[in-house]
C-alpha cells in the first residue's frame, strides 16, 4: 500500500475540525474569551481578551499575532523568476534577495485571484504568501516550466510583531541587527541557537516585523518574546483577527474575499474585479514580459472599468454596516460598503466601498444610508462620505531606518 498521506494531520476524521497551529499551546493560554474561528482551516482567535486592548496594543505598544495559517509556497528552480513574473501583474524581476514585495495576480480575464507577498529568500529561491489557497493555480501556471512549487504553510511557523515598540521588544528578546533592516527587507538571524527569518513587513501601517521559523522552534520563539514582558521591560499582547481588521482598514490594505470577490470563487459574470477596479492599477506593469491577464487588462483601456473599490471616510459615528451608497442624499444608488470599522485613533468611521466609476471619474457626492439600533429599535440616518486617496492612517515610524522614537 502506497502511503499518500501528505497532510500534516495523520488523524483525518472530522472530530478535530480546526487545526492547531504550532503556537497553539500558548495561544490557548492567552485566549481568555475562547472566541475561535477558522482561518484557512486553523483554529484562530478572533479576540483574545477585549478588542480595545488589542487594538491599542498595535497602535501604542506591541502586538503579537500568529501568522502561521497564511498560505505559504516555496518556489524555486531555474524558472522560478520567470514563473513568478508571468504569474503576477507587477514586475518582480528586480526583486533582490532578502527583499519582499506586494503582488496581486489575475486569471486570464484579468480578474484578481488573490493578493500576497513575494519573499526573495535566497538567490533564486522565493516564498509566496497568499490570503487564499492557490496551489492549483500555481501549478496550472507552472505548465512547461522548470520550477518547484511546494506548499509549506504548516512547515513554517510565523508571528507578526507589530506596533511602536516592536523593535525594542525584539531587541530585548535577543534579536540583533534589526536596526539596519529596512521596510520590506529580510534578515536571516539566530535566536538562542535556532534560525529565525525576520522581515520588516506587516499589515498595520506602523512599525512591524514578521518572524518565520521552523515549527519545532515555535514555542521557544514565543517564550523569548513574552519573556520580555515577564521581565517587565515592555508590554506585549496577543491580538486576534478582529483587531487586525481595524488596523488594516486604517492603513488602507484591502482584503480579497471581503472587499471584493476573488475570481476563482465568482459564480456570476461581472462579480469579479480587475486590479484597476480595486484601486491596484499602480501594481500593474504592462512593460514587463507577458503575464496572465495582460491582454484582458489592456482591453480595459477600450472598455473602461465601471466600478472602483475606494477608501471611504463616513462622517458621524453611526456604523455604515452593509450600507448602500447614493449619489447625493437619497439620490441614485451608486455602490455599497464592503467592510467598515470605527477607528479609535482617528475617531472616524472608515470603510472600503465599491462605487460607480464613470468615464474615469469617481462620484463627487456620496451619501451612505445607515441602519443602526438604539436598544433594539432600528433607526435610519444619512451620512456624507469622503473618498480618501491615501491610507487613512500611517506613521513615519513605519519606514524610518533605524527605527526612531521607540
Amino acid at each position, binding site marked *: *500500500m*502506497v502511503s*499518500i*498521506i*501528505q*497532510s500534516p*494531520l495523520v*488523524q*483525518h*476524521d*472530522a*472530530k478535530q*475540525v*480546526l*487545526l492547531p497551529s504550532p503556537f497553539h499551546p500558548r495561544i490557548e493560554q492567552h485566549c481568555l474569551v475562547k472566541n475561535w474561528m*477558522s482561518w484557512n*482551516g486553523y483554529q484562530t482567535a478572533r479576540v483574545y481578551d477585549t478588542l480595545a486592548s488589542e487594538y491599542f496594543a498595535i497602535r501604542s505598544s506591541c502586538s503579537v499575532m500568529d501568522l502561521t495559517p497564511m498560505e505559504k509556497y516555496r518556489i524555486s528552480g531555474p524558472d522560478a523568476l520567470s514563473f513568478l513574473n508571468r504569474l503576477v501583474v507587477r514586475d518582480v524581476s528586480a526583486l533582490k534577495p532578502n527583499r519582499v514585495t506586494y503582488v496581486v495576480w489575475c486569471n*486570464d*480575464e484579468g480578474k484578481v485571484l488573490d493578493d500576497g507577498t513575494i519573499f526573495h529568500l535566497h538567490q533564486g529561491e522565493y516564498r509566496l504568501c497568499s490570503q*487564499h*489557497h*492557490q*496551489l*492549483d*493555480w500555481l*501549478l496550472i501556471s507552472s505548465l512547461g516550466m522548470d520550477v518547484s512549487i511546494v*506548499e509549506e504553510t504548516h512547515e513554517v511557523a510565523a508571528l507578526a510583531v507589530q506596533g511602536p515598540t516592536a523593535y525594542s521588544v525584539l531587541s530585548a528578546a535577543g534579536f540583533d541587527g534589526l536596526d539596519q533592516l529596512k521596510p520590506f527587507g529580510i534578515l536571516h538571524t539566530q535566536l538562542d541557537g535556532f534560525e529565525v527569518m525576520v522581515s520588516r513587513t506587516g499589515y498595520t501601517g506602523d512599525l512591524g516585523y514578521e518572524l518565520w521559523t521552523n515549527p519545532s522552534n515555535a514555542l521557544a520563539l514565543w517564550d523569548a518574546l513574552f519573556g520580555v514582558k515577564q521581565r517587565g521591560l515592555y508590554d506585549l499582547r496577543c491580538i486576534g483577527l478582529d483587531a487586525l481588521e481595524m488596523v488594516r482598514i486604517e492603513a488602507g490594505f484591502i482584503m480579497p474575499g471581503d472587499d471584493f470577490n476573488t475570481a*476563482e*470563487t*465568482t*459564480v*456570476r*459574470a*461581472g462579480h469579479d474585479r480587475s486590479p484597476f477596479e480595486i484601486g491596484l492599477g499602480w501594481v500593474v506593469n504592462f512593460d514587463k514580459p507577458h503575464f496572465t491577464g495582460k491582454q484582458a487588462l489592456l482591453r480595459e483601456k477600450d472598455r473602461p472599468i465601471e466600478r472602483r473599490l475606494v477608501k471611504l471616510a463616513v462622517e458621524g459615528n453611526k456604523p455604515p454596516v452593509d450600507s448602500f451608497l447614493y449619489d447625493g442624499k437619497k439620490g441614485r444608488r451608486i455602490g455599497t460598503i464592503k467592510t467598515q470599522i470605527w477607528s479609535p485613533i482617528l475617531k472616524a468611521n472608515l470603510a472600503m466601498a465599491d462605487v460607480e466609476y464613470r468615464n474615469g471619474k469617481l462620484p463627487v457626492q456620496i451619501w451612505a444610508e445607515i441602519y443602526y439600533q438604539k436598544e433594539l429599535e432600528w433607526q435610519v440616518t444619512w451620512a456624507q462620505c469622503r473618498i480618501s486617496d491615501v491610507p487613512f492612517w500611517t506613521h513615519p515610524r513605519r519606514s524610518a531606518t533605524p527605527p526612531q522614537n521607540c
Partner: protein
Amino acid sequence: MKKYDAVVIGAGHNGLTNAAFLAKAGLDVVVLEKNDYVGGATVSRELHQGWQYSNCSYVCSLFRPEIYQALDLGRHGLEVVPLQGSATFKQDGDYFGSYHQPAVRRREIARHSKRDADASIRFDADLMKWCRLIRGFLLRTPPDPASFKPRDVMEFAYLLKRFYTLSESQIYEFIRFFTMSIAEYVEEYFESDVILAHFSGGSIIGTGLGVYSPGTAYVLLHHAMGDIDGNVGSWGFARGGMGSLTKAIASSFQSHGGELRTNSEVEQIIVKGRKATGVVLASGEEIDAQVVISNLDAKRTFLGVMDPNDLPADLLHRAENFKIRGSSGKLNIALDGMPEFPALPEGSSLTLGHMHFTDTLERLERAYDDWKDDRWSADPYVDTVIPSQYDPTVAPAGKHMMSVFVQYCPFEVEGGWTDAKRDAFGATVIDQIAEHSPNFKQLILHVEVRTPLEIEAEVGLTEGNIFQGELTLDQLMFNRPFPGYAQYRGPVKNMYMCSSSTHPGGGVMGAPGTNAAREILRDLGRRDSTPRDFGDD
C-alpha cells in the same frame, strides 16, 4: 355519472404533485393508482417485518423547495433530514471522505492530493455556475424551436437572455460542460484517482452511459443541483422513508379536496372526436373527465393506455424509439446491527452518508462495458446509505436498514432473467460491500433484490428506467419526451403528460408535475396555483 375536472393516471410523486396543484386551483380531481398504495417509485414498504424499505428512490434533494412550500408539505408531515457527506472506499484499504465541514473536507481531499484540495474550489464554483443556469429552467415549460408563436419566441428570448448572463468564455465552458463526459470533465480539475471516481459516480446513476461517454457531465447536475436549505448538492432522507414524501403530497392533495383511488388500474384513455374524455379502468369502469393526465412514462402512455388509432403515426414511431433502457438495480437489506467499516476511523461520521466502493474511473467505465453487453456489472458502482442511523422509524431499535443502489444492471440479460440470476446479481453486490465490511454478511436478515425487471413490474417504470427516459441530448428540454411534444400536451386535445418523461426529467423533483399543472390550468383558463421559481440566490 360524475364527471371530474381532471383525472390523473398514476399516483407517483409527479402525478400527485400535478393533481395537488390542480386541486389547489379548485378543480375536482381524481388520481388513479394501480397498486394498493400510492407513491409510484417514491414509496416506503414494509417488505420485511419491522423494516420500512424505500425500495425505489431512496434519497431526495432535487425536490424543488418552491413546490415543498406551495404544497405546504412540512405541515403535511414531511421531514427531510440532510445526509452527512459521503465516502469512497479504496481497494488498498484506505478511503476518501467527502465531509460537509469545509475545513475537514478540504483537509481530507488534501490527504489524497494537495492540488486537488485547491482545485475543488474551482470545481465547486464552476459547477455552481452551471447549476445556477440550469436551475432556472426547471420550473419552466421548454419552448418549441419550430414554433413562431409569440409565447415560444418570448420564452426562447428569455432563455437566451439568461444564457447571456454568462461571460463569453463561460458560454463556451458551459457548452463544453453540457457535451463532455464526466470523466474528462473532472480530469480537468483533479488528479487523484479516488477523487476522480468519487466525483464522477453521480453522473452515471440511472444512466445507460459510462463515465467516459460525452454528455454525462451534465447528468451530474441532476444529482448536484438539488439543495437542502441552501446546501447545494447535499442529499436528504425523508423520515419514514421516501414514501413520506408522496404521503405528504397525497395529504396536501386531499386537503384541497382531491380524491385518491388505489387498486384502479387504467386500461385505456378514452378518445372521442380527437378529444380525451376520460379513462376506462381494468375493471371496466369508465371515469369521465374534462382533462386526462398521464403520469406514466411516455412509452406506457402511448403504447400502453392509448389506442394507436387515436395517435399520429410519427408519434407512435417516436414512442417506440423512446430511449428508456433500464440500467440500475437496487438491494434493500435488513441488518441485525450496524456493519463495521474498518477503513474508517473509529466513530466516523461517514457511515451516515453515501458509501461507494469504486475507486477509479477505469473500474466505473468497465462496469458500463458489462451493461453494454447485456450483463450486470461484475464490479458494479453502488451507492449505499443506511438511513436507520438517524431515522428510528425505518428499522427496529438496534437494527439497521441499508439501501443499495446498483449501477449497472440491464433490463435484459442474455438468456433472460431467472431467480438464480437475480440472486447471483445480488450476491455480486453483497460481495463487493463485504470486501470492505467483514461482518456485513453475518448481519443480513433479509435482502430484497430488484433488477430493472422487478422495478418495471411493480412500479410500472418501463424497463425499470429510474428517470422514465434517458437523460441524453435527444431527450432533454424541447426534445423531452419527443420533439414537438415537450409542452406537456398530448397528441389529442385535453390529454396531458406530467411524468418524469417530460421536462426536466427524472430525479424526485416534482417539476414535471408542476409544469404540467401550469399548462393545464392555462388551457382551462383557471388561476395558476403553481409556484414561481425562487430565483437566483
